[in-house]
């Protein structure tokens, strides 16, 4: 379409000079409000809304003690998801990037988390009246870094074949784990009592609304992912647009989750930033459609408008025949 013909078409669409019919905008809005309200009430009465109870560190440590202790050990040696995350939690890595663009790194560490200190050592130090635990903690912290790594590596390996005792504790084969069994035994008991849920929320002030630490700790383990898989919420299950149960979720995110299903996004270590970049560009293009050649011309070339305005065109044609 030439620039001149576009200008003419634009000018012709500026103001309607044809006929009008009576119309009551407030009546229409009132009826629409009634219809939407009725639909929402009917859907509520028929389907209600989902509300699955949240997981807690206590329920996790009681339900799967081996997974809890394994996760805690990876937090201690920094090999967990949070421990190796990078910004905005720590400096363990540079975070995701596209070519030379390191947005996460440039924005820095805004929510500092030291997984060993925050998830394991500080909670253990808060437990009083246990001389054996205090001694184990001192021994661990006094040991050289390579010794600590030897202990945690051996313990993690042994946890792969660990079993759970009837009292909820974890049993591993004897080995060179240093003070780790004593430390992790105490942390497990603390978690099973519910104490660790509170300890992970502890901050400098009384009131607390930031659940970043307990959520990241649980996300490093298998407790959330196991439940999510049962509810079809994993990324590989198009989970971003799903909801617990059979409810419709954030269906409008279908395009976000679509990219995670295909290469190169599905296999890239920088998948999140790549998908965000693609969606950012597409969102901008969506807003700017009126100025994008091709996208703005499709409605003229694919005449769905003839269906939308069929009454109008029919009236025009019959009037033309009469004339």
């Amino acid at each position: 379409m030439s620039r001149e013909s576009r200008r003419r078409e634009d000018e012709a669409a500026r103001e309607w000079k044809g006929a009008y019919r009576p119309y009551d905008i407030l009546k229409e809005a009132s009826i629409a409000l009634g219809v939407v309200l009725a639909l929402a009430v009917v859907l509520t009465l028929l389907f209600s809304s989902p509300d699955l109870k949240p997981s807690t560190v206590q329920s996790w440590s009681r339900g799967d003690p081996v997974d809890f202790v394994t996760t805690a050990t990876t937090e201690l040696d920094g090999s967990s998801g949070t421990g190796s995350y990078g910004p905005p939690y720590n400096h363990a890595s540079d975070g995701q990037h596209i070519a030379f663009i390191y947005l996460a790194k440039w924005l820095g560490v805004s929510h500092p988390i030291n997984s060993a200190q925050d998830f394991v050592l500080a909670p253990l130090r808060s437990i009083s009246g246990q001389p054996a635990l205090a001694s184990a903690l001192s021994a661990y912290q006094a040991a050289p870094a390579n010794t600590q790594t030897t202990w945690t590596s051996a313990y993690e390996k042994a946890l792969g074949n660990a079993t759970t005792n009837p009292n909820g504790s974890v049993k591993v084969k004897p080995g060179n784990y240093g003070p780790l069994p004593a430390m992790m035994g105490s942390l497990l008991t603390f978690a099973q009592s519910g104490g660790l849920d509170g300890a992970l929320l502890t901050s400098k002030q009384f009131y607390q609304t930031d659940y970043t630490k307990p959520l990241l700790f649980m996300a490093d383990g298998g407790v959330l992912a196991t439940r999510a898989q049962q509810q079809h919420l994993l990324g590989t299950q198009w989970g971003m647009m799903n909801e617990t149960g059979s409810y419709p979720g954030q269906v409008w995110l279908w395009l976000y989750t679509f990219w995670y299903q295909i290469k190169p996004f599905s296999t890239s270590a920088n998948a999140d930033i790549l998908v965000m970049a693609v969606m950012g560009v597409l969102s901008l293009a969506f807003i700017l459609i009126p100025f994008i050649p091709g996208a703005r011309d499709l409605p003229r070339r694919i005449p769905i408008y003839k269906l939308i305005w069929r009454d109008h065109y029919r009236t025009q044609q019959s009037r033309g025949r009469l004339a």
Partner: protein
Amino acid sequence: MSSVNGEPPSVNGEPTSVNGKSWTEKARDRAVGALPPEKLLPDSQPSYMSSWIYVFGVLTLTSLIVIIASGSILALKGPGWWHFTGIGHFFNSIHLWSVELFFFFMVIHLWGKYWMAAWRGGRARVWMTGAVAFVVAVPCALTGYVSQQNFDAQWISTQAKDGLNAAGVGSFFNVTNFGQMYSYHVYLLPLAVVAIVIAHVLLVRRHGIVPPFQLSDRAQPTAREPESVREPDSVPAGGRAS
């Protein structure tokens, strides 16, 4: 200082505005000029608005009203109320379903407007504000999902954080911080959505609903047509609130 009995405004006999109209007068004149009452609340609509596609704009708007009303009730009682009372759960369900309806109607409305090429005739800002409303409504809904205080919120927040962190957004928009997300959900983002939607509706009222494409074998009417419908004076293409 307003005029009295048609005389120019004055203080001690001196005119108060020697250099023309005041800021207030200029703003009022501009607002009324852009949106006279008959445009803002029209009682007629162009004859071509004869399709069900036109109802989805007003259905989106009224869904937003139900969302805000049900959300306000939930906000009045606090974020935990709906988990342990039947009436709370009822209003949470109304809130959820009105959100689903809102997006459903909005997407159909957007598709309809796309196939009408509704940006024609100087209406690019109408399209753009509508598209921005959708883009801003997405994080508004997301903050609601992560403020639910249930397993859904736990899972969504721990998954959504990665994309946001990778884009640098996570440094000031932490989806695992319930307090921050709740503030975004009940105040900041709804305010943004409502402001954009109001701008969108006012632009629709100002520019009117886009007329149909001209068919190649027939020209668009250039003068008012005699028809069995009403023809009001000086009302450009207006009509439904969509």
